[in-house]
């Protein structure tokens, strides 16, 4: 039966070129208007070690990586060992492996069932024969895959031409021969695999980008013109992209000596009137928390884009986890207001970043955007992003206000007009000490109380203005799922699938975590009787956070939490639904 949705994993090492393969399939898919999600993974070796790439291409909407791949290409079973447990195949998968590799493989280990199709392909020989070099193995494979599964063949060929366009003509020629050899070999395989072809109508080309790239573009869109950062996996792509593009936009980038300097420079740049941002991951955010408090206290806009990875400490630097939540919400000493946003997919990374700048500037407050490795580094197809996302600016004082300028004037919404250097008569002297309306240091309790009130008062209008929240499923669901960030993908997919089967499950995914969207949560809680919180944090950071604001019904609130290091799967969500729903139904009868 032809498919509208196909996942392919390719595993090899160093010279096998599997990463290039993944890129080309993704590019070709995007070119033909398909939906694509592509991820990569690596072994511990810095280079030349095991690597894998998994591409999902589909004619229908997709929200996450697939749980199981339909097609697995293995150049070397030894390399595959590294990904055991990370890459599993569908029971009826097609497994294409190097003919020369005689390793015994237990299909059950991969997840393969009796219906799986095992094909030995002489990749090495085909490459050598056709292109004259084993290096062309991946190109042979692309030919083979495109023919077997109806992957966009023309765009693939053009991608190959592009890749080798700068090399000698013979090189290109050899690779085209390799591509053709793959196609030809596929034809010899006959009908066995013919029923797994992708069925689709080519459409308009789509964007193909990662969450980090989307965030970087969002920053420029929002008017960011100064970036200071220190490299750290998995956030460095933000720095990389902006190092090229921010100067084009008339801005500047500094790679600082550490994260302390980065957040310091951001506060400095912003104080100087330029929209400023940094990007980091858990360890870097930890180093920034002291100065997060400074931004809160001196009321300087600041955007901190944090890409979560596995922790604690250096942890699992290349893997995703949702465990920077607590330090984002609670890091820093004293009562230090900040805003925490949480994009849930690649496109969100653009919009959340624009929102972050808007909130930071409008409310003179630090804003943390909590992305994670999953959405940050995967490449995903998107329609041209909504480009009319409004951009907001800082409130400057009127000429009249400047006459007796109170930088920290107490106002109904907590926002005081803010000047910046260059504005004549707008000079003020600020600090991280408690201060009065003019910014003059004080340690008087009463001033402290008033100023705390003022600083926290700003959170109310933010909560009222920003309703970035997603909900899926029916209003009268039997089960409500509460989750955040990249968990949205598999949760949404599971919910929509369940709904399609008539199972009444709903999901609630807030993109604003703090100020807490209490009203919206309570609306959701009111309609539904049974809940589950799903998150990738061993200590259930999200669940515990929810408890601080919500009365989660005792005995009717479940938790599915686990460590990161492996992305959440649709199956995990489905299992939870399956396990709880019958019980929920029983309970409800009892209640009635």
């Amino acid at each position, binding site marked *: 039966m032809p498919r509208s949705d196909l996942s392919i994993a390719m595993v090899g090492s160093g010279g096998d070129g599997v990463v290039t393969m993944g890129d080309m399939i993704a590019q070709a898919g995007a070119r033909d208007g398909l939906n694509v999600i592509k991820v990569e993974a690596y072994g511990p070796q810095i280079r030349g070690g095991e690597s894998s790439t998994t591409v999902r291409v589909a004619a229908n909407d997709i929200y996450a990586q697939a749980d199981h791949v339909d097609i697995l290409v293995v150049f070397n079973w030894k390399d595959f060992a590294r990904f055991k447990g990370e890459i599993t195949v569908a029971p009826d998968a097609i497994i294409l492996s190097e003919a020369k590799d005689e390793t015994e493989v237990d299909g059950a280990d991969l997840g393969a069932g009796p219906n799986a199709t095992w094909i030995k392909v002489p990749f090495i020989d085909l490459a050598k024969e056709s292109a004259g070099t084993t290096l062309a193995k991946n190109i042979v494979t692309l030919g083979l895959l495109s023919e077997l599964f109806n992957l966009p063949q023309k765009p693939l060929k053009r991608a190959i031409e592009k890749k080798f366009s700068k090399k000698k003509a013979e090189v290109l020629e050899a690779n085209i021969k390799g591509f053709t050899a793959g196609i030809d070999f596929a034809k010899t395989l006959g009908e066995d695999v013919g029923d797994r072809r992708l069925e689709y109508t080519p459409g308009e080309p789509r964007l193909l980008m990662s969450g980090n790239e989307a965030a970087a573009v969002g920053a420029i869109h929002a008017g960011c013109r100064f970036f200071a950062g220190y490299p750290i996996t998995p956030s460095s792509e933000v720095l990389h992209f902006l190092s090229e593009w921010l*100067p084009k936009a008339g801005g500047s980038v500094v790679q600082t000596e550490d994260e302390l*300097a980065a957040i310091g420079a951001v506060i400095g740049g912003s104080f*100087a009137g330029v929209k400023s941002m940094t990007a980091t991951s858990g360890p870097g955010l930890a180093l920034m928390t002291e100065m997060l408090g400074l931004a809160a206290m001196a009321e300087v806009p600041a955007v901190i884009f944090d890409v979560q990875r596995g922790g604690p400490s250096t942890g699992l630097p290349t893997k995703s986890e949702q465990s920077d939540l607590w330090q984002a919400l609670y890091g820093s000493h004293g009562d230090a207001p900040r805003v925490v946003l949480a994009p849930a997919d690649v496109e969100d990374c653009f919009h959340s970043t624009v929102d972050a700048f808007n909130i930071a500037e409008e409310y003179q407050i630090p804003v943390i955007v909590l992305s994670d490795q999953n959405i940050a580094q995967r490449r995903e197809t998107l329609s041209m992003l909504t480009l009319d996302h409004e951009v907001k600016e800082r409130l400057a004082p009127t000429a009249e206000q400047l006459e007796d300028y109170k930088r920290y004037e107490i106002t109904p919404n907590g926002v005081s007009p803010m000047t910046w250097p260059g504005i004549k008569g707008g000079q003020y002297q600020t600090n991280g000490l408690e201060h009065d309306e003019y910014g003059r240091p004080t340690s008087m309790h009463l001033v402290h109380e008033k100023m705390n009130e003022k600083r926290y008062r700003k959170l109310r209008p933010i909560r009222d203005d920003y309703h970035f929240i997603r909900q899926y499923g029916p209003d009268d669901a039997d089960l409500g799922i509460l989750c955040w960030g990249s968990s949205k993908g598999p949760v949404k997919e599971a919910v929509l699938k369940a709904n399609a089967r008539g199972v009444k499950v709903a999901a609630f995914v807030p993109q604003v975590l703090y100020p807490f969207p209490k009203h919206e949560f309570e609306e959701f809680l009111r309609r539904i009787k049974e809940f589950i919180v799903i998150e990738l944090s061993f200590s259930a950071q999200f669940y515990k956070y929810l408890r601080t604001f919500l009365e989660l019904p005792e005995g009717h609130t479940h938790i599915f939490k686990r460590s990161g290091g492996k992305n959440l799967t649709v199956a995990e969500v489905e299992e939870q639904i399956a396990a709880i729903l019958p019980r929920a139904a029983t309970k409800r009868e009892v209640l009635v």
Partner: protein
Amino acid sequence: MSAPEVTYKPGDFKTDLKPVWCPGCGDFGVLNALYRAMASLSLEPWNTVILSGIGCSSRLPGYVATYGFNSVHGRALALATGVKVARPDLTVIAVGGDGDGMAIGGNHLMHSCRRNLDVTYILMDNEIYGLTKGQTAPTTPTGDKTKSSYWGNPEPAVDPVELAISTGATFVARGFSGDLKNLTAMIQRGIEHRGFSFINVMSPCVTWRGDSQYQLLKAKLQELPEDYDPTNRASAVKYTRETDVLTTGVLYEAGGPTIGDRVEHIRMMAQEGGKVPTTREILERFMPSM
């Protein structure tokens, strides 16, 4: 700096905040020298930013009627980097103490020197932690008893001037808070200098180092020889390790591009067409290219 429209008197730079400093503190001298230097340069207060960390000395920005930021301990230069790179048109001055600049802030100092950040940094060196009531600083002489070194400081003192020269500062001077005239001139030259200007001002702490510190310093101070050539890095370094004398004056001065110049150059390269790309144009880069 563009030609000034108005002229200023030192007093014009005063705010109405009363300094918290102890009577007799060396920092008063530094503040006065700064007022004078700013006045003779006719710095426009609204185009000038003064930043600091935390310490007695770091209270200074509160007393100057420019844009000012008394930030957190050790980070004056981190903030100053942001201000100056984001807004190269501004005059940026950073100030702080020996603990702020050489202990917790040492890394930012080293890297600001290296980058040749166009900022004037005035380090008020009292060889002690003043604000926290008298603990050992990186400039406290070995063996001295302080609140935190009951048995005497077990660490050699660092020479801020040597550090600045060897990590790449392009203007390095040593001054004394009790010598208003020379200090004013030095600060003025520092602000005029294009690149990182480092001014290590010996600024006695009457409270935690006693009267003796002032006397001791005064006795050790000595001006540079008339014919001194500050462009010679090697000879500058020689003046840093003396122990019986402390030479004041501009020890080193050199040219060379600042980080700002280099960032500006990058902007020029990047904006070859002169046009800022729209978001849509940036996104084009993510269309499958084939």
